[in-house]
Every structure is written in C-alpha cells, then in structure tokens.
C-alpha cells in the first residue's frame, strides 16, 4: 500500500481536522449541554435544547423566514439569472456583453456590510432615495419604514440580498449557456423558431443540471444568511426578521445560551449538509 500520497495529504488533513473537524464535533457535543458564555461549568441536558427549539416562538419565526428566503431566492434569482445569462450569451454584442457582465457582477465584489449600510441610507425614511422615488410615482411609502415594518422588512432584506447575488447566479448560468452547441440555435432558427422559443426549448432544457446546482447553491446561501439581516435590522423590529444564523448569534453571544445556540447550529448544519449532498450529486451529473 503506497504511503507517500497519504503523507503528502497529511498536513492538509490535519489542518482540516483542526479547523473543521474539532469545531464540528464540539458543536454537536455541546448542543447537549446548558452553559453560559462566561460560565465555567456545563450541565448535561440531553435533548432539552432540541425540544426547546420546537417550543420557541422565535425559532418558528426564524424557520419561517429561512424557508421564505430559500423558496423566494430560487423563484426570483434563477429566472432572472437565466434571462440575464441568455441575453448576455446571445442577446447582445460581445462588447456590450462584457460591459453588462461587469455591471451585473459588480455588487458581488462589494462587502456585505458596505452594501447593508448603503441600502440603509437608500431606505432611510427621511433622507432616503427609496421614499423619494415612491412618492414621485404617486405612492405612499410604508408608514413604519422599509426597515421598520414587521411584514415587509424581511422582503426588503431579500431584495437587497438578491440584488447582490443575482450576478453570481447569472455568471454560473452564463458559463453553462456558453457550452451549448451553437448549431442547435442555428437549426432552430432555420426551422422558424423565435428567440423566445429557442430560449424556452433549447437553453432552458440544456441548462437543467446547471439550474439545479445554482438553485441548491442559492438555497444553501439562503439558509446561511446572516450579514444582511444583522447589519440592516439585527433581527428586528421585535423578532420579525430573525433567521437561524442571527438567532444563533443572539442566543450564544447576547443571551449566553451557548448550548441552545449549538443545538440550532446542529439542526441548521443537518439541513445544509442535506442540500450540499444533493448539490454534489447534481454537480457530478453536470460534469
């Protein structure tokens, strides 16, 4: 049995075990304990933390928001990304494609905190551009404010997240679209197919696997969302915009419920791993 390959891989494996394996195992183990961030002792509580999760009304809000984020991210990001990818691939010239690709992808390279603060200014109820625009269109802005209304704020956060990540979806879908054989489109055109028909009956079916992978990536991203919510509302007003990650942060570091926070993390990890597993499977199919 050759040992050398394992020796070469050993440093990376040790590194991975220390940075990933140890925290992972610790998280699972500590999810069965109750302890404060500043306490010196831990109390074993079995599955109490997981049972509390079922009863906690804030957890229900966080779960509902996570599902909303997950479903809407797929419903909104994929179709828009797909249309943009098709336009960039076949709808505009080479130079225009490069310019539009840069514009669409630009928000992706910005810091999330900077994006959050920027949008906070845009959505400011007194000096923000959003209210100015809405009023100019003859409509009334929300009385409680874009980031203060318990019903609409979560959707506003989603909009901002999509604004930043739509470019990422587009680039991945564009990469898939560029691999489609051009002769298929030529044949379709000779047969009298319109551009829309080509998109619907050639581009979309042939991008099926890429769409699935991008969808799964969007779903995993939606489940892990933290920064946007934390910067824009910190989970408020009340708990209206809590998502699992902000809840973990609050329980662990603000309320000191480290064990409970670990239990939420374990559950979130389980769901994310399941989605990751599906993503890997479809990635293999694509390749």
């Amino acid at each position, binding site marked *: 049995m050759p040992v050398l390959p394992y020796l070469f891989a050993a440093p990376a494996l040790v590194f991975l075990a220390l940075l990933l394996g140890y925290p992972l195992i610790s998280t699972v183990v500590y999810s069965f304990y109750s302890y*404060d961030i*500043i306490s010196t002792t831990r109390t074993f509580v079995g599955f109490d933390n997981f049972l509390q999760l079922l009863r906690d009304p804030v957890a229900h809000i966080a779960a509902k928001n996570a599902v909303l984020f997950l479903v809407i991210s797929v419903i909104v990001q994929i179709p828009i990304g797909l249309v943009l990818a098709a336009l960039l691939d076949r709808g505009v010239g080479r130079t225009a494609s490069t310019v539009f690709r840069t514009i669409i992808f630009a928000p992706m390279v910005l810091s999330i905190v900077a994006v959050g603060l920027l949008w906070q200014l845009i959505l400011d109820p*007194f000096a923000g551009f959003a209210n100015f625009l809405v009023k100019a269109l003859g409509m009334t802005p929300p009385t*409680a404010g874009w980031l*203060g209304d*318990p019903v609409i704020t979560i959707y506003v956060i989603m909009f901002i997240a999509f604004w930043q990540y739509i470019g990422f979806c587009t680039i991945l879908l564009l990469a898939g679209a560029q691999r489609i054989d051009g002769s298929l489109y030529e044949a379709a055109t000779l047969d009298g197919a319109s551009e829309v028909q080509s998109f619907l009956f050639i581009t979309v079916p042939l991008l099926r696997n890429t769409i699935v992978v991008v969808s799964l990536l969007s779903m995993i991203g939606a489940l892990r969302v933290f920064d946007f919510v934390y910067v824009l509302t*910190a989970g*408020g007003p*009340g708990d209206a915009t809590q998502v699992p990650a902000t809840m973990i942060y609050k329980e662990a*570091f603000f309320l000191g419920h480290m064990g409970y926070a670990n239990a939420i993390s374990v559950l979130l990890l389980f769901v994310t791993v399941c989605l990751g597993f599906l993503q890997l499977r479809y990635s293999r199919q694509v390749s």
Partner: protein
Amino acid sequence: MLMKSAIYGIATAVAMAAAVVGSPALAQSQSLEVWALSGPEGNYFEQALKRFEEANPGVTTKLVTYPNEQYKTAVDVGLRSASPPDVFRNWTFERAARLVRAGLATEIEDFSTEVPAGALAEFTFDGKLYGVPFDRHGKYMWYNKAFFADHNLSTAPASFDDLIGMCKAVKAADPNMIPIALGSSEPWTIDAYIAIFNQKLVPDDIRVADASLQSSADTLFTDPGYVEALDKFKQMQTEGCFNDSVNALTPEAARTIFATGQSAMTLCGTWCLTVFDTEGLANGYLGFRLPDFAGQKGASGGHLVIEDGVQISTATRDKGTYELANKFLHFIVTPQEQAEFVKVAGSLPAIPGALEFLPDVSESFTFAVEDTAEATVIATHLDTSLDREISDVYLRGYQELANGTKTSAQIMEEVRAKAIEVKAAR
C-alpha cells in the same frame, strides 16, 4: 575542552539574561491591553494610552474598540478567550455584577480618595470595589432654543400632560416640525423613556426588588405601574410626539434630525452634546428632565443617570499586569485626565475636580454637569439593571409596541413570565 566551553557559554548567557531581566528599564517592560467603545470614547482612550506610555517608560499599550452593541458581546467572548483584555470598559450594575459572579473581573485597589463614594457604589458588590467610573451621563430632553423662542413656547413642562401639550404646540406652530426625534432601530432609545417612566410610576421599593428578583414569584413585575409606563410611551406616540418610522430610523439619524433643526426636541444622553455641536446646533439647545406624572408612586424628580467605568480582568493576576492595570485606572481618574476626557468625548466627568481644567464649556454642558450632580433619585437603563434575558423581552417588546403589534399588557405578561423563569433558574 569543548564541554567546558559550552558550560561557560551557557553560564555567561544565563548571567546576561539575568542581568537584562533584572535591569530597571526592562523590568517595567509590560504591555497593557485596553478595550473600549469606538467613537469619542475610543478616541479619548487612544490619546490617554499614549500619555500613559509617555509617563511610564517601558510600558506598551494596545487599544481594541468595538461599536456599542458589538462591544457587549465582544467583551464576554474576550474575557473567556486565551488573550483577554487587561482593562475593559463596562456599564454598572448587573452588567458589571455578572462578570464578578463569573470570576472574570477582579477586585481593584482603593479609589475612595479620588472618586466620590456615590460614584463608586455602582461598582461595589459585597463590599468590594470591582470598577471605577470614568464618566457619567444624564439623559435629557434637549430642545431647540431658537424654535421655542421664535414661537413663544414654554420649555418647562411641570407634568407629563404638559409634555404632551408641548408636542401639540410644536405641531401647531409648524406642522412640518417633528416634536421629538426618535430612532429606535436600536431599541435602547425607547428604553430610556421606559426606565424613567418605571422609576416614576412604580414604587421604588417594588422596582428595586423586582430588578434584583427579590420579589416573590407571584408578585414579580405585577405592579400596574409597569404597564402604565409602556402605555405612557405609546400615548406619546399616538399623540404625535414622535416622527413616523421610528423603528426604521437609527439613533444617529434621530440626533442629526434634531441637530439640523428638523425636530424641536430629542431625548438623548449627554454624549450627544458633541454631536449636536458639530452638526450645526452649537449653543442652540438646552435640556430638561422628563417631568413627573400627576400622582406618581415613585419618588419625584427622578432622573436617568448612567455611569460608565473600567474594570480589570481576573487574568491580569496571572499575567502579572494587575498593578499596571490599577495604575492606569488611577491615571484616568486624575482631574487632568478627566478634563481631557470631557474635551475629547464630550461626556460629563466622574470627578467634579475636572471642571477646574475646563474653563470654556457650553451652557448646555454646565447645565448637565450641575443638574446631574443634583440628581438624588436615579433611574437606570433596564438593559443594564435587569437580567439580560428579562431585558431582552423588554427590548424586543419596545419595537413591537411602537409598531402596534403588541400591547403594553402583552409585553409585561412576557416580561413577568421570563422573570419567573430566570428567578427559578437562579
């Protein structure tokens, strides 16, 4: 021969090392890590640490700062980490007490000759001193002097009803003027109102017993004054005292709205004075305490005063920096340093003697120093005086109250349930 040379070499090296360690200059070569809030407070500590280094050759310092909300979490994590701060800023009462209970903050030296006893009391637990205040803040309703003078409006409300009347008078004088600017995207801004109203509407002994969870489980937070306090805040909102979209507005934006003359009043701590001055309202504002309620059960004339201070981490005992940390604490409460703190951070000094070094302070500042010094009945922010789990219910409830998604009674029901749970767990 070789062996002999080696032994000689090692012995020489050891002797040299001993000499170096024993030399007076390097014996003092210690480093001190201080954690504080970013912003004006951090700016002061940055300058103070430089002066401390100059006054103590061989000492190096490091300042770590975080914004207000993040700091509360960071300090908990930091104190438990492998590299905790030596000196860290903290709030008084429960926030300081919990770190003492957890063994993360250590007892400090005697400061009774430097700092007034009343100021030290907020950091004294079981008769031992665990921190020293470096500033105090009073929360006042600041008003725009020119607006009130131009419209001949009263600036001395004698009762809560008068305050509501002021809001209406402002609106009547100028419909575009916001009576009181409020930004509660961070809910502690509403907590200032509720803390003061609780002090006025709940009998003092009951309020203190509830805060420390000494009341029996069946009476905890049942006094009707608590619900009334939340109702009074809601009344202010429904009577048009505040701007719209309070939960979407940051506290900083609310200060700017007042400083730029778009609102007639705002409730803010004395740390806001520098903000108002730099944003265009220098010498154009004055303050008053929130007035009493007719027939209130709490002591009259109560006032929200906050003290901030510094504590020393228990880890300094092992690190050998305990004495240096105490030395820094003594350094920042000298009248000269307190005066520097006032100049940079704009807060009120913890040491009255600092005023001797501050000849040119504004009318508002003088008012705040004198008025805060007179405060005998003190209200404290609920997020520092209550257990974190209970104050969290309050804080979340404020935003829901402002949005109308929860009533005062519902919030107090939740507060009470949490208080019973926390009491049972202790």
